[in-house]
């Protein structure tokens, strides 16, 4: 995931949000709450523990109300006060003023020193290594010395985060970053843990409710992995906690949330496409249906192959223009998807994208393919679509569209997850070309944050790698399997890509880097469109969640960055 370089555009954002969140117009009325009620919802429980220093789904639950960091998201992705009540930025220095009455669930006060400890703990690569997981600090926030610490070149104590007194926290950055607040609201590494409880303890304390100490409005009261989780109000929270209990059910592809909702076992339900018509036909339920466009998109990316067919721009564009996304969204997904034009820049973030991007145009697609030397698909190698789920109706739909429009032979390989990941990096033989299915998502609700910051960052993404011809791709894969120092491996990979990536790709990337450096919105748009026209990635649809919400629930602002769209802040939820 690359979320390098970004510029806040609060006005645009607010407008977009207001448009697409019409269904969530109830104001957060925490003040009028009665302090009672049980809210039940589904979200992902990966059993990895609630440690905010690690990148896990459980840590994301920590982030939406079990822990409370400096700031969190409010309605419409505004930045709301958390433990920090005010802040000021001065170039590369950010100062946060913390509230004095914040306490952990064991009664310990939350201080600036705790934040320093927690952020250092998250940035320290040892923490993740000990836990056998990835760090929640992904290295994309320019805190001074963070990169060096991750690479082991500087001591953890040199991190640009320090406490001034008990209730003032100061960040020193490498470069000005206007998106810092938005990053803090999205990321888990900024959540404070209690050093008195955590220090020197094994990772297993994070799966045991008795040993999890948090500072958010709710604390973990009971937890059985994959079964059920109960949150109770943190008795030491600085404000009144609106609900008496929150019940979290583990999200699963097999759980029919619609049935659970109908049985009043859950207050929300994300519908499968097939359940949408039944809900729409039900006069009561149809009023409780809300549509939430997410930042997650289903894309197909050109797979590495020894066959050069897809190195021709016209051929890739022919495939992109032969897919009728609107029909897939309406007739196959029954509205639970909307056409996508980029993996990360969704049309709710950037409404202009639909106009500039490649459009469904079967005749032109046929012409393009014919002009490239494959009239009616004759002589074209077999196209394989690799996907990680069985069945995958979208891959089958796209296969049918290509077959019917372009006359090429398409085969869908619906593999189980492990095989899918193993096959993904295989270079296809010279009689085959292919696409691999990827889910992509933006980390922030702002399309401008998807610009490439520099060339080396971009070169770690798929497109430049896969734009090399098959032989070099094979070389690249071989390089990845060698055991050598990670720095050395990165350097050699980058050199290989720099030498052999397609010049078209290189030109588009240069445009993106320039747009980001000059902060020029028009240039940024041009880059996004140019990337779409490269057609190495064919975005199919953006997930549009059909969510049933119990009318008694108020203050549910969906976290649209995540596939299962939980509330952005559990502290806002009230029930009457």
């Amino acid at each position: 995931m690359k979320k390098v370089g970004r510029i806040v555009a609060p006005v645009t954002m607010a407008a977009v949000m207001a448009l697409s969140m019409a269904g969530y117009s109830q104001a957060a009325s925490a003040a009028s709450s009665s302090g009672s009620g049980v809210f039940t919802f589904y979200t992902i429980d990966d059993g990895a523990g609630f440690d905010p220093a690690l990148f896990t789904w459980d840590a994301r639950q920590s982030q939406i109300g079990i822990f409370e960091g400096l700031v969190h998201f409010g309605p419409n992705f505004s930045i709301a006060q958390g433990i920090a009540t005010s802040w000021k930025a001065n170039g590369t220095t950010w100062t946060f003023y913390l509230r004095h009455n914040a306490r952990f669930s064991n009664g310990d006060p939350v201080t600036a020193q705790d934040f320093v400890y927690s952020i250092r703990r998250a940035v320290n690569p040892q923490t993740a290594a000990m836990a056998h997981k990835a760090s929640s600090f992904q290295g994309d926030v320019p805190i001074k010395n963070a990169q060096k610490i991750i690479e082991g070149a500087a001591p953890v104590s040199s991190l640009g985060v320090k406490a001034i007194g008990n209730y003032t926290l100061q960040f020193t950055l490498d470069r000005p970053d206007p998106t810092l607040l938005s990053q803090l609201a999205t990321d888990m590494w900024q959540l404070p843990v209690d050093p008195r409880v955590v220090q020197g303890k094994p990772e297993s304390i994070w799966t045991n409710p008795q040993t999890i100490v948090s500072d958010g409005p709710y604390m973990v009261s009971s937890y059985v992995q994959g079964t059920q989780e109960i949150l109770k109000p943190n008795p030491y929270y600085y404000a009144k906690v609106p609900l008496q209990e929150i019940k979290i059910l583990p999200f699963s592809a097999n759980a029919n949330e619609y049935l659970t909702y109908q049985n009043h076992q859950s207050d929300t339900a994300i519908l499968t496409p097939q359940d949408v018509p039944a809900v729409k036909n039900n006069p009561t339920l149809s009023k409780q249906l809300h549509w939430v466009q997410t930042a997650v998109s289903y894309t197909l990316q050109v797979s590495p192959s020894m066959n050069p067919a897809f190195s021709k721009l016209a051929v890739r564009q022919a495939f992109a223009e032969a897919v009728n996304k609107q029909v897939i969204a309406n007739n196959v997904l029954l509205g639970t998807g909307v056409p996508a034009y980029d993996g990360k820049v969704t049309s709710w973030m950037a409404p202009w994208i639909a106009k500039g991007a490649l459009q469904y145009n079967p005749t032109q697609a046929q012409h393009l393919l014919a002009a490239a030397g494959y009239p009616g698909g004759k002589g074209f190698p077999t196209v394989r679509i690799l996907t990680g789920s069985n069945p995958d109706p979208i891959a089958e739909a796209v296969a049918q569209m290509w077959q019917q429009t372009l006359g090429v032979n398409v085969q869908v390989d619906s593999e189980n997850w492990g095989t899918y990941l193993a096959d993904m990096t295989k270079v296809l033989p010279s009689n085959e070309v292919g696409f691999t299915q990827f889910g992509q998502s933006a980390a922030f609700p702002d399309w401008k944050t998807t610009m490439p910051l520099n060339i080396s960052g971009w070169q770690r993404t798929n497109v430049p790698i896969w734009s090399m011809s098959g032989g070099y791709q094979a070389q690249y894969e071989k390089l990845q399997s060698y055991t050598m120092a990670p720095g050395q491996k990165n350097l050699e990979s980058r050199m290989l890509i720099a030498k052999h990536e397609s010049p078209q790709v290189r030109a588009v990337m240069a445009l993106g880097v320039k747009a980001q450096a000059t902060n020029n919105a028009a240039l940024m748009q041009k880059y996004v469109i140019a990337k779409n026209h490269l057609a190495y990635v064919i975005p199919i649809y953006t997930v549009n969640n059909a969510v049933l919400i119990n009318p008694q629930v108020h203050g549910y602002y969906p976290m649209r960055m995540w596939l299962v769209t939980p509330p952005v802040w559990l502290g806002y939820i009230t029930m009457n």
Partner: protein
Amino acid sequence: MVRFLARRLAYMFIAFLCISLVTFMLMKMAPGSFFNANFQVNGVSAVAGSYGVSPQVMDALIKYYHLNDPWYVQWWYYVHGFLTWHMGTSFEYPGTRTVTIIDTAFPFSVRLALMAVATGVIIAIPIGVTAAMRENGWMDVGLMFFAMLGTSLPAYLVAVLLIVLFALWLHLLPVIGFTHPQDFILPVLSLALPMVGALSRYLRNSLIDSLHSEYVTGVIAKGGSLSRAVWRHALRNSLLPMITVVGPQLAGLMTGTVFIEEIFDLPGLGHYFVGAANVRDYPLIMDSALLYATVILAMNLLVDLTYGLFDPRIRRAGDLG
């Protein structure tokens, strides 16, 4: 008897080793590995959340899980860990030892299976008795038709039909969940109904045989009522041998709960196994497969022993082909 048992136990241990070896080999041969998978995901910006680990962490993991050791060493780590009940941590849930997962998930599956068997027996007895008492009457024919229906349908199909009936049409029972007793009604029924067929048919035939026996016809001739003859005499003789029918059914249920756990989204061991096979979580695959194998081997032994109790010839022959 002791020698017979010792020999059977020795065979059982050899079988266990063979099964563990075959499972290990197959698992290793399956394309992809958990860590490889995670590393790739890191490189290709997949759906938010699937972040991988750094190469340093990977190297540490490979060492920790002995993934670079020769295959027999790796295999032995799993077998030894299982036999001493000191299993390592799972790949997918690195903070959790597989034994912790098994400790909660396996009893869940076993409880499900036992509840299903108990329900099956309880439903089968009145059906079998009624059918036997009305031998060849319309009641008998009708009940046996339904019994046949039960035996021919797999549990997951019964589950789907029950969901349609109770959840879709009647809006009666919860379909998802495992916290309230009523949550278990549908899963248990789905497993029990296919079994009722076999059990009630067995019971009916066995009851009819005893009812035709001279002793019972004698009792009835002396003025005893039919139902008294059934409940007092025939049933007692028929129930004990029913163990030989229930035993294999229970063994089948041990792994048969997998699909029911998937359909009703229940956190049983089968559910974890399917997930583990999907992501190549070697420790969890091995430990759950070995546990299932042990249970099945033990059940087979137990069934053979009970057969032996009923038929001394088998005990003498030493084995059952």
